[in-house]
């Protein structure tokens, strides 16, 4: 089955300042986004897909090269978006957006700071999930969308889908929160901080102003990604995929790549460090750490979620230990406590936290079945 075909990003420019939760103000900003399918006349069929830590606006289809031919650059959630797929573009208008602080065209640390003309670098504010949702609401205004039929996301994207129901209860009818958590655990924050320390202590980081020095903290970013990748996979899956296999024959009793898992992680680290911005990575992990909608309610998640008007689909994966099913059930039980509408599916999968990106038939059937009931 073919997907949405060739796609191109668009850019929306916003001139009204955005006050941030952390105290700063962005005087103006750009959001880069893609859309698939057509917005109906009632503007009631729009779904916003929020991205996770390393994601962006290019969710589905392929970008084109200078001759208009499709490139190998397939969207990161292409398997779920397209005609006849769960996010059915024959029925829905799908929007993907690169979040503030990102490094794929949206205003972020590598963008010029209007005050200095130089890249923001370390001076770019720390943005939160609430700030992203506020900026996404500006994009909804720009597109003429009063209320999303659904907002959806996995991991950090799921947190945005949850925050939407709290920041704008009247502007979201369904919230699909996948492989997420209502807040990070101490262990989650610990992993994030090790990743940040890898970047912050890289001599090429230059306090976040590395752009001016013509270098990038590749070593730190690479380590951060390698660490992250370990938490995205499951132990079983690593054992099955790599085991203790050696890359070439017997061990050399040295420190070069020997085991397949080392080769895999180093490859992932190198690939990521080559394209991602270290300042963005720092901010994405901070947004994760700060997310805690129950914080203003003495930690009572049910009270925090009481103002939501949306219906919820919560999905977790059996081997996800980064945000285990128990974390999703915290959200589910808070909603049940409040008498709010919720369906919860716990999917058997070997792929750990990354399962939400995989084409698991039962998982996709759950999303498909749920979205088929969404009225337009």
């Amino acid at each position: 089955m073919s997907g949405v075909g060739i796609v191109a990003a668009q850019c929306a420019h916003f001139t009204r300042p955005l006050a941030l939760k952390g105290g700063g103000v962005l005087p103006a900003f750009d959001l880069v986004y893609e859309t698939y399918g057509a917005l109906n006349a009632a503007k009631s069929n729009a779904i916003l897909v929020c991205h996770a830590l390393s994601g962006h606006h290019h969710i589905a289809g392929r970008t084109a090269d200078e001759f208009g031919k499709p490139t190998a650059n397939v969207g990161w959630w292409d398997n779920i978006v397209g005609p006849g797929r769960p996010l059915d573009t024959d029925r829905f208008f799908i929007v993907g957006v690169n979040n503030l602080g990102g490094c794929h065209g949206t205003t972020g640390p590598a963008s010029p700071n209007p005050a200095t003309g130089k890249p923001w670098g370390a001076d770019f504010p720390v943005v939160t999930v609430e700030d992203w949702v506020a900026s996404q609401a500006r994009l909804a205004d720009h597109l003429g969308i009063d209320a999303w039929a659904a907002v959806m996301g996995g991991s950090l994207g799921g947190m945005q889908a949850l925050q939407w129901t709290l920041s704008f209860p009247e502007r979201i009818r369904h919230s699909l929160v996948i492989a997420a958590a209502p807040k990070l655990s101490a262990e989650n924050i610990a992993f994030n901080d090790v990743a940040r320390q890898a970047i912050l202590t890289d001599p090429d980081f230059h306090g976040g102003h590395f752009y001016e020095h013509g270098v990038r903290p590749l070593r730190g970013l690479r380590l951060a990604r390698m660490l992250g990748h370990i938490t995205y996979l499951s132990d079983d899956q690593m054992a099955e995929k790599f085991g203790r296999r050696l890359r070439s024959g017997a061990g050399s009793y040295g420190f070069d790549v020997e085991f397949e898992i080392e080769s895999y992680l180093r490859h992932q680290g190198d690939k990521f460090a080559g394209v991602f911005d270290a300042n963005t990575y720092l901010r994405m992990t901070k947004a994760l750490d700060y997310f805690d909608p129950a914080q203003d309610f003495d930690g009572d998640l049910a009270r925090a979620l009481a103002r939501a008007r949306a219906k919820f689909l919560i999905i977790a994966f059996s081997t996800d230990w980064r945000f285990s099913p128990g974390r999703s059930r915290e959200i589910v039980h808070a909603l049940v406590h409040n008498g709010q509408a919720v369906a919860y599916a716990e999917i058997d999968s070997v792929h750990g936290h990354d399962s939400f990106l995989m084409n698991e038939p039962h998982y996709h059937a759950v999303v498909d079945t749920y979205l088929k009931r969404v009225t337009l």
Partner: protein
Amino acid sequence: MNQPAERADFDLIASWVQPGERVLDLGCGDGSLLQRLIEERGALGYGVELEGAGVLAAIAKGINVVQGNLEQGLSGFDDQTFNHVVLSRTLQTVRHTERILSEMLRVGREAVVSFPNFAYWKNRMAVMGGRMPVSEDLPYEWFDTPNLRFFTLLDFESLCTKMSLIIRERQVLDEAGRLIVEEPNFLGSLAVYRLGR
């Protein structure tokens, strides 16, 4: 999921639910009972279902369904959240019998339990004839049954006494779904109880 299409106990359960009441259906399957309670009785319904196929079917009906395993109790559900907690034709498949009954009355004010009566006369006849019973309410062969516990009305009521559960109401049905009054432990194929603390 392999439940008889005709669910005579559903009529009774529906008659006990008042509009606006919160109902938790344990082992809700495709959500048929909840759908009925929502549409006919105006209940606020939630279901717990273990099997992915049941969860999917319930989602297709727009039912609030939570995937989970009853054997692990109802941890996460808050105390006294529901007016009724229903366990329809499922108690005989649960290993931790006492725990699930306690949990039902922790999260709900009333437990509604239905189960096949092993002492139904046809079942007794089958055993007398040397074979395990297969009937409308015990539709499985011994080698493929999900049932772990085989018990009678008298057995169940003695457990209720042991657990200090109050039987608020008992209705007993035959295989055709008719109400049985006389000799229920002999003439009844399916029992439906309302329990409290």
